[in-house]
């Protein structure tokens, strides 16, 4: 199942400046694992050492917050857009 991760502007240095990355995975957890495997520089920004999402990181599948959809077990379908949304910065 190929889904597309939308990469926040500030993290694109870790994806060779790509705005989006296509990743396989049946759940958000699997997709995230593949994402950070393909782009290891992303990992410390998004996940804890134990492999959990950092507490201020929000992940949406299309418009839905995964925390309401089973967290890392939230299902991913082909064609879904997954966004990693940072808290905002600056004044």
């Amino acid at each position: 199942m190929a889904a597309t991760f939308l990469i926040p502007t500030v993290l694109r240095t870790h994806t060779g400046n790509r705005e989006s990355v296509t990743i396989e995975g049946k759940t958000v957890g699997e997709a995230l694992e593949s994402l950070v495997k393909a782009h290891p520089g992303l990992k410390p920004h998004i996940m804890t050492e134990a492999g959990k999402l950092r507490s201020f990181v929000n992940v949406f599948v299309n418009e839905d917050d995964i925390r309401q959809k089973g967290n890392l077990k939230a299902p991913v379908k082909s064609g879904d857009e997954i966004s990693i949304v940072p808290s905002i910065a600056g004044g």
Partner: protein
Amino acid sequence: MDLVGNTPMIEITRALTLARGQRIFAKAEWANPGGSVKDRAAARMILEGERSGRLTKEKIILDATSGNTGIAYACIAAARGYRLRLCVPENISPERKSILAALGAEVIYTSGQDGSDGAILEARRRFESAPAKYFYPDQYGNDDNWRAHFHSTGPEIWKQTRGRITHFVATVGTGGTLMGAGRFLKKQNPAVRVIAVEPDSPFHGLEGMKHMAAAIVPKIYDLKFADETMYVSTEAAHESIRKVARTEGLLVGLSSGAALAAAESVANRIARDRKPAVIVTVFPDNADKYLTERFWKES
């Protein structure tokens, strides 16, 4: 406008284990009428706009903000009869969105993926396409932002510590507080050390703060001004916030947590040299706008 500034200074004692001779004080900026430190800069930028004739009743006030400056503008615009248009990243806390709506501000939401820089670029684009229509204070590039702190926050800190401050620690978003109060304090006593606090990563949960290395550096922020910059993780700020809530009975905001975490590290470092210190920081806002955040439920 008369209610802006002159905020209390609180000594933080129970939340920290400090060595003898180390004292940490914080300015309680939520005591401003708009609930944050941003009232100071917003008030001065609006008043200077009026005084210079650049802001008139036909103009719409336009700026980019991650929330608190927007709330400050919205209070002042409502009270003085101006229209206000704000460019705001869509991922600010729901509480901030509700406050801006309640105050009647017009809000243009920009992509959360682009953070506060996306909002800045949108405000610039709108202003450049119709400059006559807007008064664009541009908090990131307006000298009245830091001057507000040079003339209020700095002198208040000097007076409230009776000139005994040794270290000034401030989080940076626009850099206004650090530059303004820092310049004033160094003018009184060049030995005062000024310490900037930034998030440790460009991807963080410290609303209002900027990781300068990966952001549009505000024009008013001189990267060489601070004697040093400390980097705080979002998790360390959360930890400080919970500690202050549970031991001091103070509900402080995210950047306040980061400020305290940094101030505590400074104190511990100075204590190793067995020197006394009066460390002053600024708590930009309280937790009213962050009570729905998940970190309260963590240990």
